[in-house]
């Protein structure tokens, strides 16, 4: 390094310091503008963790700018130019140009440049004084950003509802994972069921909105349904092929009494042999296991156990426990949680956390609770009632729906027909009531049409509408069951 370059080092350092301060303030301004724009964007669109990005912009950008400036070297010639511009009249630039020259003129010029350089104060040439416009602009942005917090953000409620939804989905996913672990490892269907639950759990964790979660639940239900259907068809087909077609038919129709009667009429050993053969012929492992269990029960004379095993096979499961039912319940708990979260998001009331208990009871059922085989849980609506302000403990019988059930499930507007519609939130007599009077429905005030004349049409329309509305299978079944009950 030449004497001149050595003498210019303090200038370069001071110039770098000045530049760093300048860039830091510019970075701060840019960061503040970025934060402000993000804040404005968060009012118009959903912007999760806007506070984090704002902090990154506000703190990170100036730091980054300052770091870049500090690291980026200052060329000696640039420092020379700046110092020359402060009154040295191109002495330094010329001296740097002649640094390799040894002519008398070059030597004189160099000495002259060094002599004048000594008279220059770096702090005077490179003051740490920042542009007033820059500082004012930065302060203005900061003020604007601060003031923006006084304005209520309409997106925040959506974001918090979404966060609550995702939290609920995570909880449901954990319940599903817990349930999957507790499944009976000896059962043939268990690996597949665990996969279904695991996939559902993953989808729920990823779901950002209720529709995605509902689709995942729907898919899980369909997969369970297909699995159970395969077992059922295989078991019944094997039984039919081995001379037990009448028992298979009774089981298929759900006629428990007839099936029991037919079994009791049969020779135990012969029945056991037929069932064993059917088990051997069965392709599905779960079907084979159920048929084997039935054969063993028949051999030991336990008709009830044999019937239970055959009912499991007909239901498409491999166990006399409530594993399948509990499994379906778990899936429905998740769907109910999605539904209640969706409702909460729509009404802005935040997620109603009513599903954890129901989910836990479903898991408890896996470890030994419950009775009946493959018929579903005691809580028919899977928590929906609780989520909608109804008592979760109100017992319901199959086929009889109370006015409260009607209120919570049936919404005539879904039938896409004109008519009176009343929407209520919660029980009648409590909460807000909004009444919408639409156009005239079928008939007139003077006339009345017996409901049996129109019930079939209503039922078809309702079922079609439920399917088109993309509801989960269990919800579609509710609609179907409701109208079936009305028709009876």
């Amino acid at each position, binding site marked *: 390094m030449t004497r001149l370059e050595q003498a210019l080092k303090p200038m370069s350092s001071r110039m770098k310091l000045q530049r760093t301060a300048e860039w830091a303030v510019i970075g701060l301004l840019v960061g503040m503008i970025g934060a402000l724009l993000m804040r404005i964007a968060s009012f118009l669109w959903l912007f999760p963790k806007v506070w984090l990005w704002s902090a990154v912009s506000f703190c990170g950008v100036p730091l980054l700018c300052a770091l870049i400036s500090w690291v980026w070297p200052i060329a000696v010639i640039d420092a020379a130019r700046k110092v020359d511009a402060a009154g040295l009249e191109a002495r330094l*630039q010329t001296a740097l140009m002649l640094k390799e020259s040894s002519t008398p003129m070059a030597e004189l*010029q160099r000495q002259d440049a060094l002599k004048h350089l000594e008279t220059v104060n770096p702090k005077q040439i490179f003051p740490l004084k920042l542009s007033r416009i820059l500082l004012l602009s930065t302060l203005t942005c900061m003020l604007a950003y601060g003031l923006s917090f006084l304005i209520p953000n309409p997106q925040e409620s959506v974001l918090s509802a979404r966060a609550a939804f995702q939290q609920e989905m995570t909880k449901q996913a954990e319940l599903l994972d817990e349930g999957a672990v507790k499944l009976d490892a000896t059962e043939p269907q268990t690996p597949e069921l665990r996969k279904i639950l695991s996939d559902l759990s993953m989808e729920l964790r990823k779901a950002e909105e209720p529709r995605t979660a509902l689709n995942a639940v729907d898919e899980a239900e369909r997969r369970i349904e297909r699995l159970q259907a395969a077992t059922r068809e295989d078991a019944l087909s094997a039984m039919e092929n081995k001379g037990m077609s009448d028992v298979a038919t009774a089981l298929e129709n759900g006629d428990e009494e007839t099936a029991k009667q037919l079994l009791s009429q049969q020779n135990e050993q012969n029945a056991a042999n037929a069932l064993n053969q059917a088990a051997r012929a069965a392709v599905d492992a779960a079907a084979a296991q159920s048929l084997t269990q039935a054969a063993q029960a028949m051999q030991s004379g336990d008709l009830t156990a044999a019937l239970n095993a055959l009912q499991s096979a007909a239901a498409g499961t491999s166990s006399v426990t409530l594993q399948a039912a509990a499994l379906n319940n778990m899936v429905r708990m998740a769907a109910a949680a999605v539904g209640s979260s969706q409702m909460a998001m729509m009404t802005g009331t935040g997620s109603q956390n009513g599903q954890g208990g129901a989910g836990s009871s479903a898991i408890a059922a896996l470890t030994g609770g419950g009775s009946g085989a493959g018929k579903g849980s005691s809580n028919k609506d899977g928590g929906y009632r609780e989520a909608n302000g109804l008592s979760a403990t109100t017992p319901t019988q199959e086929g009889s729906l109370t006015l409260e059930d009607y209120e919570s499930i049936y919404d005539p507007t879904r039938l896409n027909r004109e008519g009176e519609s009343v929407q209520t939130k919660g029980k009648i007599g409590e909460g807000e009531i909004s009444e919408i009077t639409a156009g005239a429905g079928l008939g007139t005030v003077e006339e009345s049409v017996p409901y049996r004349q129109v019930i079939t049409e209503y039922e078809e329309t309702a079922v079609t509408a439920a399917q088109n509305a993309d509801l989960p299978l269990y919800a579609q079944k509710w609609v179907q069951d409701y109208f079936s009950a009305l028709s009876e």
Partner: protein
Amino acid sequence: MIPEEQIESFKEQINRIRAEIKKEIIGQEPVVEQLLTAMIAGGNVLLEGVPGLGKTRLVRALSQSLELPFSRIQFTPDLMPADITGTNIIVKTENGNEFRFQEGPLFSSIVLADEINRATPKTQAALLEAMQEHSVTVAGETHALNEPYFVLATQNPMEQEGTYPLPEAQLDRFMLKILVGFPNMEELSQIVGLTTVPQTEHAQAAANGETLLRLRAVAQEVPIAQAVREYALRLVLWTHPELPESPEKVRSALRFGASPRAAQALIATARVRALMQGRYNVAFEDIEALAPACLRHRIALSFEGMAMGETAEGIIAELLKTLPRG
């Protein structure tokens, strides 16, 4: 390689010459400085000023202080080229009559061409070779002129009738065009005091032709930084209205711009000025100080420029204001 002593003594030499000139000329320091600058740089000068400002006296003082032969040519419309270059005359010798070349007033070191714009273009053209080549060709024979050689021409800005404006080609051969201004009250008082009484002190020789040539050699060694050089070149280029990077004012007000001689003149004179200022390098300030003198006679206003009331000085000032350094 110029020895260090010579370089360091440059300013001292110039100051000595200045001091001698000051004995004859009151004020006009910028004019004297620019004149000296051009002479040391090896260029010719066009002095423009009203009569009676001491232009002839200045040139005479210069020749005295530099101990250089001086000749004055008063240009008139009837002046012929042969009158200034010289001609062959018949001389009676022992061997009979023969032609001998009789040198004209051009054969001097410092030639004062007074009121050059009063001579015909033909006579003006006779100066061209002398100014550029430092030689004169008569009847096919070229005669070299002395070195150093300077042509200092004068013209009156007021008298325009019966004059022949110098062609651009000839104007371009003048390194600088110096405007001689009217003295102020104090200077006028001193002038009157000096010239209306017997002069006791006259300019003495402070240097000679050889010294001048040495000073020129020293000046040619002065380094110029790349940024400063480019500044000078860009300044000359921006005087051209046909270039897209030229300022709007230039494109509308000028007919044509300066030639490469302007760039040569700028840098050569800037080198001299740097040394005169006690610096050993050319600075932006040197270019800016000499730009008007180098460019004012090399650019021409367009009709639009004249109609807008623009002047060459104004255009040059605008250029210096807008052209960025470095």
